[in-house]
């Protein structure tokens, strides 16, 4: 009981302590070795840059742009990924015949397509959204495909013995046993969607936080670069936590959620 509580409290103690430790070590190293702040700025300077970033209207506009790209790409990946995953999961012959193509497109370095996307979709939002969606698509599609195939035989037989219609099978059984797989895919996908949007901004256009990172680097503003990386990490964390919270809401019965609440280890 008390051991349980201790285990749950552990990350709340360890994480802040580690962060403090890292910041202190950072400061010590920078001072001790007299590192050039252009190469590796001390934590204080990064913090100042971070504060100035958060009080800068342009930064907020860039944040809105980037977040819009991420969410749009993620939602497109969700819709397409679920549809393709369900169809391929249901039609085994189609999945088997497309499998080589899927594997190839999955291992292909999609970031390399950015120049093409810029040619096709321009320097605006679209090319970033496309890259973001493309990266997020695969984990969702593959997990959904796996989920469709993983419905328990015993559960299917329950539905058969109850004379369930196809529609009822889908809404009461298949869709629901699919959800944990979908959320597992979504947790990976939201991270990849974030990467997609930022890399897209690195390589083309003049909008968004990725573009600000490039601009800060070009003006040799290492502190601002660090501050932007910090800000992007926070955005990524918040998006991940939103997906995680959705998961807790939609599948409270699943091990991945339920087990956390009731660890008996």
């Amino acid at each position, binding site marked *: 009981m008390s051991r349980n509580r201790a285990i749950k409290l552990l990350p709340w103690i360890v994480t802040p302590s580690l962060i403090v430790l890292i910041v202190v070590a950072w400061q010590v190293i920078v001072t001790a070795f007299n590192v050039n702040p252009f190469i590796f700025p001390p934590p204080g300077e990064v913090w100042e840059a971070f504060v100035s970033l958060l009080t800068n209207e342009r930064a907020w506009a860039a944040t809105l742009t980037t977040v819009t790209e991420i969410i749009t790409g993620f939602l497109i990946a969700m819709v397409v990924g679920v549809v393709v995953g369900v169809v391929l999961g249901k039609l085994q012959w189609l999945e088997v015949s497309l499998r080589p193509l899927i594997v190839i497109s999955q291992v292909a370095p999609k970031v390399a397509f950015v120049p093409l996307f810029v040619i096709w979709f321009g320097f605006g939002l679209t090319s970033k959204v496309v890259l973001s969606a493309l990266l997020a698509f695969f984990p969702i599609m593959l997990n959904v495909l796996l989920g469709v195939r993983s419905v*328990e035989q*015993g*559960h299917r*037989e*329950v539905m*058969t*013995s*109850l*004379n*369930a*219609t196809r529609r*009822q099978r889908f809404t*009461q*059984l298949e869709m*629901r*046993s699919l*959800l944990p797989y979908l959320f597992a895919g979504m947790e990976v996908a939201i991270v990849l969607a974030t990467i997609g949007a930022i890399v897209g901004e690195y390589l083309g256009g003049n909008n968004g936080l990725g573009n600000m990172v490039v601009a800060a680097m070009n003006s040799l503003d290492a502190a601002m670069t660090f501050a932007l990386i910090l800000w992007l990490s926070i955005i990524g964390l918040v998006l991940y936590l939103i997906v995680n919270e959705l998961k807790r809401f939609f*599948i409270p*019965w*699943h091990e991945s959620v*339920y087990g956390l609440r009731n660890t008996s280890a």
Partner: protein
Amino acid sequence: MPTMTTHDTSARVAPSNAPAPEVPRLHITDLGRDFTTRAGVTHAVSGIDLDIRVGEFVALIGRSGCGKTTLLRMIGGLLSPTTGTIEVDGRSLWRGAQVDPTAVTKLGFVFQESNLFPWFSVLDNIALPMKLRGVGKAERRARAADLAALVGLTGFEKSYPRELSGGMRQRAAIARALSTEPELLLMDEPFGALDALTRERMNLELQRIVLETNSTVVFVTHDIPEAVFLADRVVHMTPRPGRIRQILPAEFEKPRSVDLQTTVEFNEIVRKLRHDIDEEE
């Protein structure tokens, strides 16, 4: 006491809406099922003839692999027969490999694993069959609560299946199967995974529920005393091919108490079955 439909349990007659008494609930003729595998053809079940009366409790017993599950799955509309026919209340269950949906609605199946849906609460699991039949939410919830009470799960309606013990899950599965008031309840080793004491308690509860609902039951088990305790007739099957070797009546008054298991008559039947099953090799 639950407020379910309570029939007069002493009467062995069919309820008024059932067909004439001379039509058996279940009429099986020359039933057989083969499986073709890499190793060749298995005659899992072959030449089964069996009639089961309305309100009768029949236990299927026999060595592992003698075709009990295969037989039950065919009766349950889950597996099509290779030969022979199954009639439920005089209506043919199988048309080739197609199952007649109206005949299936009369059946309730309790699987070896409870097969509850982990995303539904106990109450929603019990109510699922009614949901599929379009019973309104308020009504099915009320009836599911009554069924939960019938199987002794009051207070656990909102729990997820994972929060229940194995025996409680099995009881929830029985309640789910009962929720459509099936005319024929099919149970495949429902208590196989339980310890002896829980199993004994479940047997008593099952007997009470079956008497209260006047259900007809086909019950698969490995446990000889369990079969004799619950059943009106014990069907003893032998493997390869799965056939009926003998049918032993166990005509003891119901409801039966655990004391029955110490009587000479009871043990006579148990001993005979044990001996006969033992001598096959």
